[in-house]
């Protein structure tokens, strides 16, 4: 290993094997064990899912309904689409589907007095605490006992910028940056052990370091993001959400996916050349759609005779299986 000897010549430093036996490996083991325990505790805490009430379920489903109509309305004929659009935008405007139709007119009280809100918040806090406490304790433990230890050498070089981060507590000016302190080893473990947890606990485990980091960074705001919470942590005004959905609906124009289905079928069976569809699309996009599109299918079917003789094989839709690896 040529690279290795060069490095060694540059900075040979011997570490006491006791550090390896009593610091390096114990930190790793403790972190694995804590991760497992935390996973089990989280499973315990999540034992009873909160019951949703009927009205809020109806509220969210109604909002979905608007979205589905906008996304999949193309499968409906014109009259069906328009009827639904009118009905939904009317209902959204009036607030028929809202949990509490009069909520917007009432003056907003203190959110802290709303028991549902407080409960959601407590729930989030509890989960956040579960994430934060173990990591804080481990960090404190490492800081208290092992601060100032040089634990290990990274096998790759880093820029000097990392020095203050990786060698915190070791006040040397000329030690190579790749030598790292105990706290850095902790962070390396925090992220690197992800896969180990995936292996032991299965995926979707609760010992997720990324979530920890998020929990720590949102801790200051104190608000848990629930489904009903706006970005500010206040319960969102459902009426406003419904109104914006109504606006979206009103802006949606109906495009019927079956308008030229006969032509598509003819193309599929090779009775018409594929180019007919492209022509049709062009004709449609040329504006004045109604007159253009009405004339184009008839001209298209006139080409049948020509196409039937020299039709290129039309590829059937590729069949995709539903198998597992």
């Amino acid at each position, binding site marked *: 290993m040529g690279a290795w000897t060069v490095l060694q010549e540059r900075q040979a430093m011997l570490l006491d094997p006791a550090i390896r036996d009593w610091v390096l490996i114990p930190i790793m083991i403790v972190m694995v064990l804590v991760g497992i325990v935390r996973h089990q505790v989280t499973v315990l805490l999540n034992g009873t899912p909160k019951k949703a009430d009927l009205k809020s379920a109806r509220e969210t489903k109604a909002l979905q309904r608007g979205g589905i109509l906008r996304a999949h309305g193309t499968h409906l004929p014109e009259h069906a689409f328009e009827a639904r659009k009118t009905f939904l935008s009317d209902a959204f405007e009036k607030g028929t589907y809202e949990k509490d139709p009069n909520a917007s007119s009432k003056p907003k009280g203190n959110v802290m007095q709303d028991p549902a809100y407080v409960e959601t918040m407590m729930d989030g806090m509890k989960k956040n605490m579960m994430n934060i406490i173990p990591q804080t304790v481990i960090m404190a433990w490492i800081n208290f006992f092992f601060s100032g230890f040089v634990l290990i050498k990274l096998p790759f070089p880093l820029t000097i910028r990392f020095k203050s981060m990786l060698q915190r507590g070791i006040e040397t000016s000329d030690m190579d940056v790749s030598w790292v302190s105990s706290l850095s080893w902790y962070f390396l473990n925090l992220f690197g052990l992800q896969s180990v947890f995936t292996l032991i606990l299965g995926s979707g485990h609760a010992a997720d370091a990324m979530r920890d980091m998020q929990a720590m960074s949102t801790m200051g705001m104190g608000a848990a993001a629930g489904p009903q919470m706006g970005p500010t942590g206040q319960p969102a005004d459902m009426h406003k959400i419904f109104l914006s959905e109504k606006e979206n609906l009103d802006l949606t124009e109906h495009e019927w996916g079956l308008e030229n289905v006969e032509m598509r079928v003819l193309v599929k069976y090779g009775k018409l050349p594929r180019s007919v*569809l492209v022509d049709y699309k062009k004709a449609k996009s040329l504006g004045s759609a109604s007159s253009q599109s009405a004339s184009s299918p008839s001209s298209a079917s006139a080409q049948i005779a020509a196409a039937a003789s020299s039709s290129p094989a039309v590829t059937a839709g590729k069949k995709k299986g539903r198998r597992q690896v």
Partner: protein
Amino acid sequence: MSGQQINPDDALYVDMYIAKNSQTMTFIRSSYSAILGLAAGTLGLTNWSGFIFYFLGSAFLSLLIFLVKAKGNPSPYFRQPLDVFTEGVLGGMLSYILFWTLLYGIIHVYD
């Protein structure tokens, strides 16, 4: 646009199986990158050679999955056929670094 929005291929994927497949991929990649890390640490690879080793190793794994498990045609198993090569590669990197550092440290830095 009319008609082109209707894509008959969309519904041919069962979400549950797609999720299961990507879970399996994550599982394979996690174990594999940990083992790769152990190997790299034992060999005493440093600097770029370590990272190149990782990417070569992952590419080899992807190729194996592509050829052996997907039989050269990943599209029935993944929405994006290229997922076979990319899924979980960067996620496995962190654990690769951890085990690489650990073994490298134990074998080549101590004693």
